[in-house]
């Protein structure tokens, strides 16, 4: 973008996706994955799933957030304004999840079946849900970017997080865990269909969010982001997993390699979705101009 076009033409946001903004992308993806995986693991009572989700959030999400900050040693200051800032609320939820999750893992391993385990499972579950969904609120609060300013965004993020969680749980089941893989596949099938529907509804309704919102959707569908959307989000993230699911449903259980391939494609789809949304965030022109 030329300097004389800045905020005169549609101007994409760059802070949260370009250069070190890549860490924000990875942090958002891992937050959704970690939170969703924890919730699904709670359902299947899979300790491995809970441990992996905890590690994803601590190491991947936490690490990426710290890598992105301009002053990472001051990160503790970010919890000081939960009354108005979604970033503050989100960090609090993440910290609480890390604490409750750690206690839950310890109690599940050494004190299984006790009231403590149940209490920490509930607390960790609530904070995991918050961890997966808060990024949607962080983004939809911004009214300068109409494409993000939708109530559906947090819903989309949590649905994708749970979908990713089902994928990882299936992978854990293939590794020999006592998870009922058929139930996990049914769950992933349901969330796959829901996520595809919500994504389609989101993109359609975004065209009604003013000219800037429409411009974002056009950029994703027909513009320079179209390859990422159609190949990453749609083909890898929806079509291939639906194909794998159909094979599994109609032709008997699919082979492990096919299932793993479907899971990997699902992850690529989730990564691509977050990338598309961050790249698609566009500010409308500040002043009237004929050179859009």
């Amino acid at each position, binding site marked *: 973008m030329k300097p*004389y076009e800045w905020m005169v033409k549609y101007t994409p946001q760059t802070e949260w996706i370009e250069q070190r903004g890549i860490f924000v992308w990875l942090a958002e993806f891992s937050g959704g994955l970690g939170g969703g995986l924890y919730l699904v693991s709670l359902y299947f009572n899979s300790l491995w799933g809970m441990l992996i989700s905890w590690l994803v959030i601590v190491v991947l999400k936490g690490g990426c957030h710290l890598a992105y900050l301009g002053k990472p040693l001051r990160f503790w200051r970010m919890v000081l304004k939960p009354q108005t800032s979604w970033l503050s609320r989100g960090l609090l939820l993440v910290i609480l999840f890390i604490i409750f999750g750690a206690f839950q893992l310890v109690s599940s391993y050494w004190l299984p079946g006790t009231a403590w385990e149940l209490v920490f499972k509930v607390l960790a579950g609530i904070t995991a849900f918050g961890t997966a969904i808060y990024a949607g609120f962080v983004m939809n609060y911004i009214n300068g970017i109409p494409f993000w300013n939708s109530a559906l965004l947090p819903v989309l993020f949590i649905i994708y997080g749970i979908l990713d969680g089902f994928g990882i749980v299936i992978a854990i089941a293939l590794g020999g865990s006592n998870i009922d893989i058929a139930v996990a596949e049914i769950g992933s099938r349901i969330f796959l269909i829901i996520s595809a529907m919500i994504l389609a509804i989101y993109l359609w309704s975004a065209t009604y969010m003013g000219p800037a919102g429409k411009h974002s959707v056009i950029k994703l569908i027909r513009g320079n982001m179209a390859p990422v959307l159609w190949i990453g989000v749609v083909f890898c993230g929806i079509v291939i997993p639906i194909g794998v699911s159909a094979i599994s449903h109609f032709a008997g259980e699919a082979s492990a390699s096919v299932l793993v391939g479907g899971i990997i494609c699902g992850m690529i789809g989730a990564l691509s979705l977050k990338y598309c949304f961050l790249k698609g965030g566009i500010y409308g022109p500040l002043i009237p101009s004929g050179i859009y």
Partner: protein
Amino acid sequence: MTRWGMVISLQKCVGCYSCVISCKQEHYLPPDVFWNRILISETGKYPTVTKQMYPILCSHCKEPACVKVCPSGATTKREDGIVGIDYDKCVGCRYCVIACPYQQRTYYADGKKEYFPGQGFTELEMIGKKLYPLQPGTVVKCNFCVERIADGIQRGLKPGVNREATPACVIACPAKARYFGDLNDPQSEVCQLIKEKRAFQLHPEFGTEPSVFYIA
């Protein structure tokens, strides 16, 4: 209570960029950091083209989005309406940069960037780093020359009237297109201009209630 604000006459602005440069000079701003900008609007088709200059800067909004989203409390709104940043508290998350609908905040990434790459800092740059040190890794923006205002008030001067107490961009404008004053004082020049010339705010639909008004 005082609420500092600015009125910019689009009829008088010639797009000379004096405000941009004077702001850079006043605060010793590093490369790629601009607290004042000029946007140029071109509408119509040849031969009936209309070109309009829009000087823009931080609007020091009454309902600032940046203050609400700041997780560390580094960005705050003073009692006199000036939205300021405490660089010692800023963590560099850039949520405020994204949240500002006018895009008037800048992330100061590289403290080693020189105006003349490969030639070291100029004397002016070195003086600036001592007199007006900005912290790399934090977000920076226009502060309505709060130091000039504070110093002027202490000396009994009136911001918007006396040059030494008025923001640099206002006094640098050769076309006298910029006015500064108290929006809560009905007798102030800015209030009278807003009323008489039907001044407008940029994109009031954002709900931020900016303190910078424009006269078309």
